[in-house]
């Protein structure tokens, strides 16, 4: 599973990243968590509000910092 965190680098994006990593660790799901800060790549997903969570190429949430629990529910 490939989890991408889209964000231009502010505190919220870092928080989402941390929450995603925690969710992966706690759920035991095999996944890599990548931070995407490049504008072109972010725009490719048609996302207008960051931070955004993308799983295997699909945008799961945008503009919100999901908690680790919320993320766990999505990835399991």
């Amino acid at each position, binding site marked *: 599973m490939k989890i991408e965190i889209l964000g*231009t680098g502010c505190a*919220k994006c870092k928080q989402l990243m941390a929450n995603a990593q925690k969710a992966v660790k706690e759920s035991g799901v095999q996944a890599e968590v990548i931070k995407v800060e490049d*504008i*072109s790549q972010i*725009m*490719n997903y048609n*996302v*207008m*509000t960051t931070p955004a969570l993308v799983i295997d190429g699909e945008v799961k949430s945008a*503009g919100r910092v999901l908690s680790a629990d919320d993320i766990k529910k999505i990835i399991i």
Partner: protein
Amino acid sequence: MIKPVIDWLVYEIFKMPHGAILSEAVDFFLYDTIKIFLLLVVIIFIVSIIRTFFSPEKTRAILSNKRTYTGNILASLLGIVTPFCSCSAVPLFLGFVEAGVPLGVTFSFLVASPMINEVALVMLWGLFGWKIALLYIGSGLVVAIASGIVIGHLKVEGLLEKFDHKKPGCVVPGAVMTVKDRIDFAKEYTVDILKKIWIYVIIGIGLGAWIHGFVPADFLVKFAGRENWFAVPLATVVGIPLYSNAAGVIPLVSALTEKGVALGTALSFMMAVTALSLPEFLILRRVMKLKLLIIFAAVVGVGIIFTGYLFNYILR
């Protein structure tokens, strides 16, 4: 309604001496803090419900093919109800431009969003009364609309940074929200905002209370009173690199005006601090050439300065 309770708390429970400066400062601090937090909770909640009806996708759709002036007005109005986190500045800006929203209209939105929001409204209302709050919103809108129109006319499309990306396909519409969804969202958003700003509100009010109690009245008149003509541009320029959300800066503004800073000057400062910020510029630099960024700051800055003078003149 709240004041008698606070007075009772300060003078009967804490047993602070009547008439002492410290008592007054504490009283002011407690009263304002509670009043403002109550207002914040209620109004942020209400506005976030409204916000659930205006997702970025929908906002973009509404704005994409409007003729210039209507577009600028709508964009500025929509900017009031849409949140603005500096980090979203770039994707939002690009998303709008890509969808065919005219550049000037996008800029109107960019100016209005951080400058006019429910937090600013509540705090201004709470500390200065509804007339000032309304005046601020009105002039903020005018600055946003005018800046957008001016920039739109400058034909600055060539000053956007080029970069490669796929042409976006159909816009993914936001999921439909039920009433419960909206309420959950509003609750979450309200709590988030409060968590983010509560410390600034307390510090701001604390500073204000201190100034209220301990700095002599008219202390600042010499430097920033109405007669000092360059106070407005100075306040604006000083405000540009600083960044704070409205919560942090308004209580300070309140105390400053009490000590002699002209209201127009103080409001210019506040507008400059919220609408133009160094962190936001740094992020926008990725999609705008420096020249456009400077044009943006200059046009809005001039608008703010003009508004400051206007306020000072009207309120004389």
